[in-house]
């Protein structure tokens, strides 16, 4: 029964994927912001798909967006786990 609540095909798995994606996205934002003032963007950036100038404002907007998504996903996960807790509790 628990597989129906927290198994791989449930909303919980989707939410976990969402958290992983948000986490990876924030790492990219952090990396771009950390390299915002580099005079030369060649080398590592080029190897990862081209070096473009960093728009710090756009990165901050993306960061806020990811934070909100992450927060929402964690709240939804809490609800899902609360459902599991409620279903396994005696009474």
């Amino acid at each position, binding site marked *: 029964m628990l597989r129906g609540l927290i198994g791989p095909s449930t909303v919980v798995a989707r939410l976990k994927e969402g958290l992983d994606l948000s986490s990876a996205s*924030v790492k990219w934002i*952090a990396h771009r912001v*950390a390299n915002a003032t580099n005079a030369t*963007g060649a080398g*590592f950036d080029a190897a990862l798909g081209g070096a473009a100038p960093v728009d710090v404002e756009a990165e901050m907007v993306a960061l806020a967006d990811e934070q909100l998504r992450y927060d929402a996903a*964690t709240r939804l996960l809490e609800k899902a786990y609360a459902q599991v807790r409620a279903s396994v509790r005696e009474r």
Partner: protein
Amino acid sequence: MRIVGSWFSRAAAGPIVRPLFRGLAIAASGLTAQRQRIEVTAQNLANAETTRTEEGGPYRRKVVALAPKVSMPELTRPVLPGDPWILPPRVVEPVDLLGGVEVQGIEEDATPGELVYDPGHPDADENGYVLYPNVRQSEEMVTLMEARRAYEANATVFEAVKSMLRRAAQI
């Protein structure tokens, strides 16, 4: 021959950073780089009028050379079967290689300084000219402001990652 510690071995440059905290490490690398830029700018401004150095001649403006950093390159090494280390081999995603920024060195600006006619100066040449450092105060102030804003941006990212980790720990 067994390859030891594919994941947790110490990288040649820098301490171990677990994947969970890499966002923090990336932002911290940006903070370190910008702090060093500010320190070098302070050094340049402090020596804006220095006409004699140990190497001879006037002070030369210093510039911080920054470059993107690759995180833990040994991650790309395959784990051999029977390796007792904890984690199984996995595909290395580009996001696993992000390491932020690193200071590759502090280099000298090669542009010549200004010649000022000041025959009373102890470092004046036979024609009465003194070679001053190639430091322009306005340029240094712009660099200082840029580094400060970039430091703030990195600090914001650090705070954001920290709050996300805290939120995840509350699930």
